[in-house]
């Protein structure tokens, strides 16, 4: 049993991670294509534009992997975005550090409320989070009833431009947040519990997973990423935006494209993040190509359906063998 991985095992690993690998290849292809199409359009702009969605997708992925779904991601982003903008406006540059930390904590708390309600009431997650999305959206409007507020200079600079003229800063930030917040977690017992809960709740319970706590944790993590997304919104636009509902369903689209099973238990967050970028690039490319915006949304939808069908077909073939 203790031996070095042979070819079959390497192939197995590639097969398991194949979807994620594929989506990164697609992303690479699209980046090159975009560069050929319009070399003046910088990658940094694109990375910035896709940053909020990438965070939203990461959060949604965690919840869906754990067997739930969070329809309040967009509303949580709005709430955290305006909170950050209001607190940062007229505040010193140093205070902004505290604001960023506070807003991330707010996201965790808001997410935990979602999860706790779902656990206590035993109402299906989709219903609880749909209802809570109105609560958080309303709260966001109370904080700031129209786009406004501000963002500290360094917060705006941190996502702007390229690092060493090479990698977009927005991508670096994303990699840092994911690297610090998710990678260690994924390898911890909590990470395993998240997958266990989504894969087979009864078996998870019987394996000693604290089912309810794990579920609350999954929503809290989602809240954290939603807050990161809200901060990204404020940072990239320089103001707070109280209505961002669109992000919820785009995040769901991104996780499906990114290889997360809506049935739970399968996938990761790197795939969805890449998928968020793919969606953003496709959108930008269609604009460059002068496609009517109405057609462009139809094309995006068509691509989604096609991809999901291919995924389903691959899964079917894998099982048959």
């Amino acid at each position: 049993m203790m031996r070095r991985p042979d070819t079959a095992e390497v192939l197995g690993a590639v097969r398991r991670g194949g979807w994620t690998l594929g989506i990164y290849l697609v992303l690479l292809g699209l980046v090159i294509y975009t560069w050929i199409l319009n070399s003046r359009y910088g990658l940094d702009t694109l990375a910035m534009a896709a940053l909020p969605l990438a965070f939203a997708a990461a959060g949604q992925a965690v919840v869906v992997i754990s067997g739930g779904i969070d329809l309040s991601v967009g509303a949580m982003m709005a709430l955290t975005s305006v909170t950050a903008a209001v607190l940062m406006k007229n505040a010193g540059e140093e205070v902004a550090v505290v604001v960023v930390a506070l807003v991330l904590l707010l996201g965790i708390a808001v997410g935990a409320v979602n999860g706790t309600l779902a656990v206590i009431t035993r109402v299906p997650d989709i219903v609880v989070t749909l209802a809570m999305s109105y609560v958080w959206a309303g709260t966001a409007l109370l904080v700031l009833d129209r786009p406004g507020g501000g963002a500290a200079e360094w917060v705006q600079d941190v996502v702007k431009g390229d690092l060493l003229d090479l990698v977009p800063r927005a991508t670096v930030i994303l990699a840092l947040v994911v690297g610090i917040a998710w990678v260690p977690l994924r390898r911890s017992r909590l990470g395993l519990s998240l997958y266990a809960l989504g894969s087979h709740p009864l078996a998870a319970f019987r394996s000693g997973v604290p089912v309810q706590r794990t579920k609350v944790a999954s929503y809290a993590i989602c809240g954290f990423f939603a807050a990161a997304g809200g901060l990204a919104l404020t940072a990239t636009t320089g103001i707070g935006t109280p209505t961002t509902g669109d992000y919820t369903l785009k995040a769901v689209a991104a996780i499906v494209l990114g290889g997360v099973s809506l049935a739970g238990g399968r996938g990761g967050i790197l795939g969805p993040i890449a998928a968020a970028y793919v969606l953003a690039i496709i959108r930008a490319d269609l604009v460059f190509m002068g496609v009517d915006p109405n057609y462009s949304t139809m094309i995006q939808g068509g691509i989604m359906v096609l991809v999901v069908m291919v995924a389903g077909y691959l899964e079917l073939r894998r099982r048959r063998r």
Partner: protein
Amino acid sequence: MTDLLLEATGVVKTYGAVNALREASLAVRPGEIHALLGANGAGKSTLVKILTGAVRPDAGTITLRGQPCQVRSPAEARASGMVSVYQEPALIPDLAVRDNLRLTGTPIEPFRAWVAELGITTLDLRALARDLPLPTLRILDLARALAIAPDVLLLDEITAALPADLSERVMDVVGRQREGGRSVIFISHRLIEVAALCDRATVLRDGQTVGVLDITEGSENEIVRLMLGPAANGLAAPGGPREPAVASAALPAATAVPAPDASTPRLEVRGLRAGRKLQDVTFDLRAGEVLGVAGLEGQGQDELFAILSGDDRPDEGELRVDGVPMRFRHPADAIAAGLVLIPADRMQALLLQRSVRENIALPAVAPVRRWGPIAMRGEGRRVQGAIQQLQIDTRAGAEVRRLSGGNQQKVTIARWIAGGVRTLLCFDPTRGIDVGTKREIYHLLRELASGGAAILLYTSELEEIQLACDRAVVIYGGRVVDEIPAAEANEARLLRAAHGLRRGAIA
């Protein structure tokens, strides 16, 4: 008594109107293998769930090593030295074996040792649990439990669906738990195993402990008597294969459709091939007979039944129903041709959240009315007829998932009987079902056969072939390797053939 390791007394649990446990008790001594027996619905599963903390009792006390003990979750039970291996493996399908071990904090080295001890020589800890076959998963689940050296090990039908060789290794390992004062609570419907392995037995009936006995020569009869209770003892007499067939004269004529022509087989299977699992299967199934299919795990029987029930398509070969060639593209085609499936896994057949009545009425082989609203009264009459014929306990009938396993299996059969049955494909219909219900089911199959139905019966318990079938085909490596009349189909002959041996010693 302080020399008991685990004691449960006066345990009561009610679910709504159903008393799952009325007055259950269980006393386990250190270093004994204790059988927990009872018909389906007697309350075994509920008692196990209470002992392992998955369910909380309404009343009763549980003491472990003389100390009152209240576990609230499987994790707490594990911490206090009680580990359970359930009927369905508790490994997380989407996690690698190694991660499953990390999840439960199981030490890897002892786990490896137990896996090897239990007869699995190659295991990649990086394999996802969902990619492993069911018997392997059960072994891994058991090894994971053994690896933390529990004082009390609860085994719920551990040998069900295990091939014979693995079963033997498991029994051997379980028997050796006695050393060092460890105890095992052993739940099984295979009384032969209980007799071979266990020291004492507690028998439950209707949620009550009705007897505790030492296992000695011939205690099987006593156990069966206790399990069935005074009312059902007529069924307990171990009848030969022919005996139920005589009783079938009383069968209502409408239940089975007579064969059009006795000379044409109801079902002809010729050279069936599909994928790698099914190579070449040929046999005839005639109206009025029960044909047994015997085989070890994974010899192509799953694929055979999937094709016959229209769930899968063959690569090659021919199917004829009443002499007419058939190509099923969908289970509906098979059902229309009169081929209906009773799967081993009841979850595949039933709508768990719906009522007994809806479940029985759903397939509607011969609909009460083709279009428009359902004729409720006609449907109700048919459903009632089927319920009575199978003696289904419908007290919890508003939702099928609340019925006991045996009752659920009866519902899966009743679904087809309500509309009249021509060809019944039974795939291990008695898996995990108690002796009493098993006998009822075999009795029913004989009745249906003598009423003109054709029945194909796969069973994982070889001794049952002789009980229910007229003849048997043995499947090995995707081929039919032998055909044996019931009179000669004893376990030894079947086992030899099932291992691919024409003669010689049992492998």
